[in-house]
């Protein structure tokens, strides 16, 4: 097992807000190996975006407190100083964001924004050479007529092309890691499919390690190798794609999987649902954060479970639930649908 490219250890990110202290990321650890696609799944308040932005050093608020370790190729990024982080951004770890319309500067042409990325780290590339490379990059992400598109403004491109352009820009300096934060959420489903194929191709052809942040399990099933499920700032389950989808160990994961609609299966009479709502980070219950919504809560839950591998046959499949594996199998519905008990 090769050494991981990116190693996050016990990351904690909190913010002092007017209403109180918000612990957005509460002890998150993850590893990303070269060429791997890791999906981070979660809803609002789960902390997935803040985790990603902290890895990139984009959390700059004075009210933020960041603790823990983020190591890239054995280099510590947290507390290493802004200069070190800046060198890593774009060149070694790159990021694309959710809404390509607002994430590109509307007053500059797409080509010049890519050129800016190419020349960002004081490279000796000439402007002419950089422009040529920009057109090549647009072409490599599947934008037709790339030579002409280089001179377009962001608002002159369609949503899908804008996202491709963002990805091209992120790849300008051939980084080792790409973090994609909800890259397809703002796009139509047909365009989403194209972007996912693109990401998959980049991962396969260039060995580009990818962290894909999403709330859509369909997207996860399509491209991920490993999955991290986050809830209220903590990782509640971690495992391979197969493990998470076919042997999920945490009630929240069951709920997410159960409430999915599938067009290739007969319709359930009623959609299984998770009661309640994702908690406000200002007012978390003690112990397991999922407690108020969990139909299987019992007397151990007021104490926070550790994230551990509880399955002898799959030690790398971690979860944060006190239930024993046999109990979990009972609680889950099987036969093609994994989820909580159907609401009567």
């Amino acid at each position: 097992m090769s050494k991981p490219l990116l190693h996050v250890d016990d990351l904690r990110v909190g913010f002092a807000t007017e209403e109180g202290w918000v612990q957005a990321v509460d002890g998150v650890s993850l590893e990303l190996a070269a060429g791997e696609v890791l999906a981070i799944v979660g809803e609002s308040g789960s902390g997935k975006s803040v985790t990603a932005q902290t890895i990139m050093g984009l959390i700059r608020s004075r009210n933020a407190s960041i603790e823990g370790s983020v190591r890239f190729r054995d280099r510590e990024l947290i507390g290493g100083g802004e200069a070190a982080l800046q060198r890593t951004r774009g060149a070694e770890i790159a990021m694309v964001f959710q809404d390509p319309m607002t994430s590109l500067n509307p007053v500059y042409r797409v080509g010049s924004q890519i050129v800016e990325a190419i020349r960002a780290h004081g490279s000796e590339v000439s402007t002419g050479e950089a422009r040529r490379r920009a057109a090549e990059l647009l072409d490599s992400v599947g934008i037709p007529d790339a030579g002409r598109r280089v001179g377009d403004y962001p608002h002159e491109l369609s949503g899908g092309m804008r996202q491709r352009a963002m990805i091209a820009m992120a790849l300008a300096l051939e980084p080792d890691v790409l973090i994609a934060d909800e890259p397809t959420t703002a796009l139509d489903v047909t365009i989403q499919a194209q972007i996912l194929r693109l990401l998959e191709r980049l991962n396969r052809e260039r060995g580009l390690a990818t962290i894909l942040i999403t709330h859509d399990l369909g997207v996860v099933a399509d491209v991920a190798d490993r999955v991290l499920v986050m809830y209220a700032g903590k990782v509640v389950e971690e495992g391979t794609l197969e493990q998470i989808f076919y042997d999920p160990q945490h009630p929240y994961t069951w709920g997410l999987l159960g409430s999915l609609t599938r067009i290739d299966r007969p319709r359930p009479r009623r959609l299984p649902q998770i009661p309640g709502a994702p908690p406000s980070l200002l007012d978390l219950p003690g112990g397991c954060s999922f407690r108020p919504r969990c139909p299987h809560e019992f007397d151990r839950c007021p104490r926070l479970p550790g994230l551990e591998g509880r399955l002898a046959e799959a030690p790398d499949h971690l979860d944060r639930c006190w239930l024993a594996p046999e109990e979990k199998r009972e609680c889950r519905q099987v036969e093609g649908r994994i989820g909580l008990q159907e609401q009567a």
Partner: protein
Amino acid sequence: MGRFLVRRLLGMVAVLFAVSVLAFLIFNVIPSSDPAQRMAGRNATPQLVAAITAEWGFDDAPPQQYLTMMGNILSGDVVSYANRENVDDRIVEGIPATFSLCAGAAVLWLAFGILFGYLSAVRAGGWLDKTLTVVAVTGISIPVFWLAALLLNYLAYQTGLFPSGGYIGLTEEPLEWAYHLLLPWVTLAVLQIGFYSRVLRSNMLDAMDEDYVRTARAKGLSERRVMTRHVLRNSLVPIVTLFGLDIGVLLGGAILIEAIFNLNGIGQYAFESLKGLDLPPIMAIVLFGAFFVVLFNALADVAYAFLDPRVKLESGAR
């Protein structure tokens, strides 16, 4: 673009017409002594007054008077009621002073307004920001004429550091030209610096939260490049439009400052004409000023479309 300009030019004609009618109506309604009476002078006889009235058409119906005056203004023949001098000529004489005042002040206020706004935004919340905010708000609050009088009194009359007024042509004596304009430039700029720095600061703080700034950082750009090429660049666009509008207004004459510093520009001419309710110069100056406002309004729109490619000049496309 061509279509846009033609449309605007047509609009300009309509605006100027409306402005001239309004100005004429306003000054016709204000009760003042009979202009014929004033022209005739102290020892006027009723016959003299009647003769002047007939000659000048003061007994014509108002629409006729309006048409006569407009005709005169446009052909360059209009003459002041007060002193019989040619109004258009006098305006042309006043242009160098007014334009010099505006140009110099504009350079000052843009340079410092942008500098202060940028520093305030980049160091928002810190002591520099707080200091510059106080400076800006003070600048906005100080009455222009009071500041002018203050500077004139302490820096000119009492200490003799600066000349106490008057305008020297640029082509005659460049150094004297600048020397005489220094205090007026500063007076005019102070208010604008305060205003522009606040606007820029606010725009920049908004821009710093935008997604594309986050992308710029994610690319690994230095903080300075992020601030200048992304935050500042985008924040300057509304400043440019604002500037266009301000300049348009000022070119019609900065009345108070010109009067206090005795620059003999168009503003001062306006000041004197208003004091005497002398209608022909007032009309001519109003038209002159309106022309520049409309012109620079249009130019500001063009500049905006140039700086922000999302904006189309035509509002037709949905």
